[in-house]
């Protein structure tokens, strides 16, 4: 009687695979529910200056599971060597930008109207204030942007070294 044994083995193998599938399905749903309830801090992936609109567009990733809402933005403008503009600070511009979970969202930051276009070497330090649904606290993320310089890591390193001296 070879055939019944073969049927038994075949059914057992399929049952094991099915059980594996069921187990991983339930693990996946519970884990994704847990992850969906954890708010994360947004990550600014990219910043681009738009000359026509005189604004900077930030691509912000929300790596967590809950939606985050940017409620306000501030920025500090520091002129470089080429610029004739003076340094200025614009703070607490109210906006309402929702960052859905797991998605890159573009947020526009309009520079002060009437000021000159950004020149190479100008720096804009933007601070976004955001909230998440689990608490009423305010959180911030600051992103330094230097016109015409690709390496984003340069700016924070410089500020650190200044602080050290």
């Amino acid at each position, binding site marked *: 009687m070879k*055939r*019944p044994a073969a*049927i*038994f083995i*075949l*059914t057992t193998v*399929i*049952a094991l695979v*099915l059980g594996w*599938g*069921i187990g991983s*399905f*339930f693990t996946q*749903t519970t884990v994704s529910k847990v992850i969906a309830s954890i708010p994360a801090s947004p990550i600014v992936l990219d910043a681009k200056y738009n000359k026509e609109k005189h604004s900077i567009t930030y691509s912000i990733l929300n790596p967590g599971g809950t939606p985050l809402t940017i409620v306000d933005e501030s920025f500090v403008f520091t002129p470089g060597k080429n610029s004739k503009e003076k340094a200025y600070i614009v703070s607490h511009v109210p906006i309402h930008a929702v960052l859905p979970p797991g998605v890159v969202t573009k947020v526009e930051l309009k520079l002060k109207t009437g000021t000159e276009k950004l020149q190479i070497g100008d720096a804009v330090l933007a601070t976004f204030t955001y909230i998440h649904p689990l608490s009423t606290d305010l959180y911030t993320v600051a992103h330094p942007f230097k016109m015409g310089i690709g390496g984003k890591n340069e700016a924070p390193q410089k500020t650190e070294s200044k602080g050290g001296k």
Partner: protein
Amino acid sequence: MQRVLWWIAFGIFVAVIVLGIFLFSLIVASHPEATAFVIGFLGFWLFANRLIFGYGGIANTAKALLDGEIPNKEEIAQKVAKSPEAAKLQKLEELSVAALLSMWLSSLEPFKYAYYLGFFLTFLISILFELNIISSLVFGPVAEAVTFGAAIPTLLVWGLELLASYYVGQALVKAVKEVEAESSEAGSQNGQQNQ
């Protein structure tokens, strides 16, 4: 007195049902996938029950027949016919056990077809959700859980069907051999008588 007792019993009954619905809705609200899994499993088992026990019975009887036991013909005839009277009118008891078993096997065919159709539709819906052809965060996992629950009785039906058709095939081969041996014996006896 009796009326009072009746009302008390009725009140307890209603309270139990209300509490049950409350608990059930709590479970559904917090674990929709687990509930869908259980409902898929129980619901499909309901339809698979006839197939599971039918194929199981066929496989058992055919195995017993192969081992040399003589199963009760009337019981098998009742599975095939609508009623004992119908079985008598159809003269099922004149048939061999193997023939009755093959009739029983083919009588389960429409049920098997309907069952596999139901499973296929459920499977199709969950595949549509899985491949994001239709997308819903609420119904996607629920449809998938129903399919997983339904897959368990389906696997049982499938395995038992393979087993039952194998044993019935063996029993039929054995029965045909016996019939041939009998007819050849009868033929040789006839020949001897002719001589």
